[in-house]
């Protein structure tokens, strides 16, 4: 067997082992879901799909999800674009800090946002009560469609903002000056020069927003109430409050994957024909602002920042409030932390043990896969690369379902184990980790590796002594970013945990559902602190200046 004309060697074995692992751990579980969606006790059957499209109760969730997702995607872009434009073109005091804070709000656990808005605008929320007490007014409800859109938009603006900032940085001033010298300025320039150059980035970022909003489970679960989205439908039909219908749940999962895959392919089709690589020799320099326009721009930037950070602040403050039967009452203390300390300690230990194991697995596989796809182009590594990207279009909830479907009966029973938690988290984050490591690997000249070999280093020695150490700064900062997303992940592990493998994010979810708002706030605060500490660490790392998400 030959890989791209290279003789069979250690790397070929690595490629084979990885491919085997992927087929067994990722592809097979998804195939199992697909199979279970078209079978019932009697054999082949499309009942699952038929049921879904027969009742408004079911297909309505797809409509709901699409409505939410499209609104969020459009709104996130409409809000993020001016934000990125202002931050690039004008001098905003505290620019660097603002960027770090926006990043922090993006990396904070998604469902904490939803939970925090319950604290603010929920039935017993701070603003709700204040409006009622002072003015006798009914506050707008956070529950339902509008609430979900608000929470998800605030959560996802930072994501597309980060993308746009990256793209602005590659835009050379001379392009703008060239347009100006030909008499194209102002809005015409923005439309004819800037917009087409940013289009691939906008579409790429929007795809990510779309996929995240479409697959988000925590937010609609916490504040959707009567308004059910498709992930909520999958969840409830899979855990089955009334009856468990796995074939139906699998059918819905297949529909969700089909939608995400369709959007992904559409985006790829549009972007592939318009991609160009640019590096700015002279990046755009920010100009000073003055007058009313300046104040409006400041108001926009700081206003968004406040709105994005408010939920986090509310959670932290709430965690110190007194509670009675899970509800907040007057006065401040550390009681929320003290009474739940045994649970808290268990969640933290699990978060670290599961998270770090998953991270190590993730980094090792990402380094090997990216090396193979960059240096050993061939049929096998091409397949490996494609398989790695599969979880990218598969929502976390469905990864969980797939692992249960495949590994809940002998010969291999993994449900409820430490291993399945690790596996699920690693699989979920692999596409992102592989992509960022691959980008690093492409920048790494192949001749550095050849130099090591010509100097007498074997292949394994070259990997351990040259490739990994040379890429270490980039790999490490990527790992910290993966770490943050691992500890804040909820939906992937939702079906897989038991009390001995419950992590912080799963703990928060469980406590909110149980109505233990105080404990949930305390846990959220701990998770936020952990996230922020990781981000601070990332900022201080040599490879952490350029954040890729």
């Amino acid at each position, binding site marked *: 067997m030959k890989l791209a004309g290279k003789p069979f060697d250690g790397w070929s074995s690595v490629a084979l082992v990885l491919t085997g692992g992927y087929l067994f751990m990722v592809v097979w579980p998804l195939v199992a879901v697909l199979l279970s969606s078209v079978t019932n006790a009697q054999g082949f059957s499309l009942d699952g799909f038929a049921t879904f499209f027969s009742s408004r109760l079911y297909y309505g969730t797809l409509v709901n999800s699409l409505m939410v997702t499209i609104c969020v995607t459009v709104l996130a872009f409409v809000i993020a674009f001016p934000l990125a434009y202002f931050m690039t073109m004008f001098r905003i005091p505290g620019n660097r800090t603002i960027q770090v804070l926006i990043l922090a709000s993006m990396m904070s656990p998604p469902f904490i946002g939803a939970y925090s808005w319950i604290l603010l605008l929920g039935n017993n929320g701070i603003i709700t009560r204040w409006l009622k007490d002072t003015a006798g007014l009914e506050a707008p409800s956070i529950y339902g469609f509008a609430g979900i859109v608000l929470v998800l938009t605030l959560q996802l603006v930072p994501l597309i903002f980060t993308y746009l900032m990256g793209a602005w940085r590659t835009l050379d001033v001379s392009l703008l000056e060239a347009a100006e010298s030909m008499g194209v300025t102002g809005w015409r320039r923005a439309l004819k020069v800037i917009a087409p150059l940013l289009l691939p980035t906008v579409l790429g970022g929007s795809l990510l927003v779309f996929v995240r909003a479409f697959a988000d489970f925590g937010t609609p679960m916490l504040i959707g109430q009567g308004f059910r989205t498709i992930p909520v439908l999958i969840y409830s039909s899979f855990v089955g409050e009334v009856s468990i219908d796995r074939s139906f749940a699998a059918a819905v999962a297949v529909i969700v994957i089909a939608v995400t895959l369709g959007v992904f392919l559409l985006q790829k089709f549009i972007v592939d024909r318009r991609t160009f690589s640019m590096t700015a020799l002279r990046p755009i320099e920010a100009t000073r602002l003055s007058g009313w326009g300046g104040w409006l721009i400041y108001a926009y930037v700081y206003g968004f920042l406040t709105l994005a950070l408010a939920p986090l602040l509310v959670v932290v403050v709430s965690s110190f409030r007194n509670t009675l039967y899970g509800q907040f009452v007057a006065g401040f203390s550390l009681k929320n932390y003290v009474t739940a300390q045994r649970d808290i300690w268990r969640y933290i230990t699990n978060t670290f043990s599961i998270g770090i194991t998953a991270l190590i697995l993730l980094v090792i596989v990402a380094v090997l896969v990216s090396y193979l796809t960059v240096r050993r182009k061939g049929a096998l590594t091409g397949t490996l690369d494609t398989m790695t990207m599969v979880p990218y279009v598969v929502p976390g909830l469905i990864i969980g379902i797939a692992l249960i479907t495949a590994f809940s009966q002998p010969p291999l029973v993994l449900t409820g184990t430490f291993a399945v938690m690790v596996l699920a988290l690693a699989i979920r984050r692999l596409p992102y980790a592989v992509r960022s490591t691959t980008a690093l690997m492409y920048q790494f000249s192949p001749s550095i590796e*050849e130099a090591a*070999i010509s100097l*007498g280093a074997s292949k394994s020695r070259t990997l351990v002594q040259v490739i990994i150490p040379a890429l270490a700064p980039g790999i490490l900062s990527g790992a910290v970013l993966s770490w943050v997303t691992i500890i804040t992940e909820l939906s992937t592990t939702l079906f897989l945990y038991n009390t001995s493998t419950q992590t912080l994010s799963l703990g928060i979810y469980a406590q909110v559902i149980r109505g233990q708002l105080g404990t949930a706030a305390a846990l959220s605060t701990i998770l936020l602190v952990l996230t922020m500490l990781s981000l601070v660490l990332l900022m201080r790392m040599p490879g952490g200046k350029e954040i890729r998400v």
Partner: protein
Amino acid sequence: MSYLEIRNATKQFGAGFIALNGVSVAVERGEFFTLLGPSGCGKTTLLRSIAGFNDLTSGEIALDGSNLRIVPPHQRDIGMVFQDYAVFPHLTVFDNVAFGLKPRKVPAAEIKTRVTQALEAVRLGAMAERLPAAMSGGQQQRIGLARAMVINPRLLLMDEPLSNLDAKLRIELREEIRDIQKQVDIATIYVTHDQEEALAISDRICVMNAGRIEQVGTPQQIYGNPQTRFVAEFVGTLNVFSPGPALDGMLGQLGLTAPAGATWAVRPERLDLAARGGAPDSVAVLDGTVTKYTYLGREAQVQVETPAGLIVVQLANPGISATRSTGEAVAVLVPRDAPMAFGADGVRIGG
């Protein structure tokens, strides 16, 4: 038997592209041997197959009498210098150079002396503890050179080591490479597309084109006595005469003959200019008018429209009096030994 012998080296990439098409060369001990040619001619492919980074489709490579193709690349004991320097970004200058000594189990004390010596040789002695990232291209390539030499390799390979450097540094470093190579006396194969560099640095040059060898010879032979039209055009510049009565007349005047269909050409610096009618008897004369005059400092190029085609004449050390203006009537002087004839296949006739 030569030190390095390559016989019938053939390399095919994929289904269609043949990078090397039956190449045979021999390199002697201590020789500075250059592979010269345009991009895509196969020179880098040949170099990389000697290093072992890509294997030949067929053919033999023998170093010091033993088959090299069966030896894995990391055991070939061949030093290599790369176009993009390929310094290890995470190691200091010292550790970069010491890298190859560790797998060779050289004692620590000896590593220290050998690395220090190598760094002195490339004039980087004072920078041993620095990281290469902030260093200039020239300095990084010096690290690459020291690192490849310090292992006392059986062969030193250099893949366009100077092409990423600016013109002045390129000349400076090529002199250093030449001096160091003569000192350490390691057979070296050097790849370049820069003909001037090849002429300046080599003991022998192998000119390649489209996967084949055009000519192997000393710099003097390659430049002064090119055996194919490709070599003559690639190494230096060439005026090609248009066939016709004017060319036939000139050849007759010089007493030169060649088979019908041959192409006649001449190097610009072998020609001279005179006022019309003022030519000595030993040379042929082509009357023409100046169409362009380009002053280049140590030389000037005069483009002359003649009945035998557009001819460029190169004048050395042009003073003010040598300036020609467009439209001026001149005579191009062609010495008897200057014209070269090439057959339809591009091979030199009677060279």
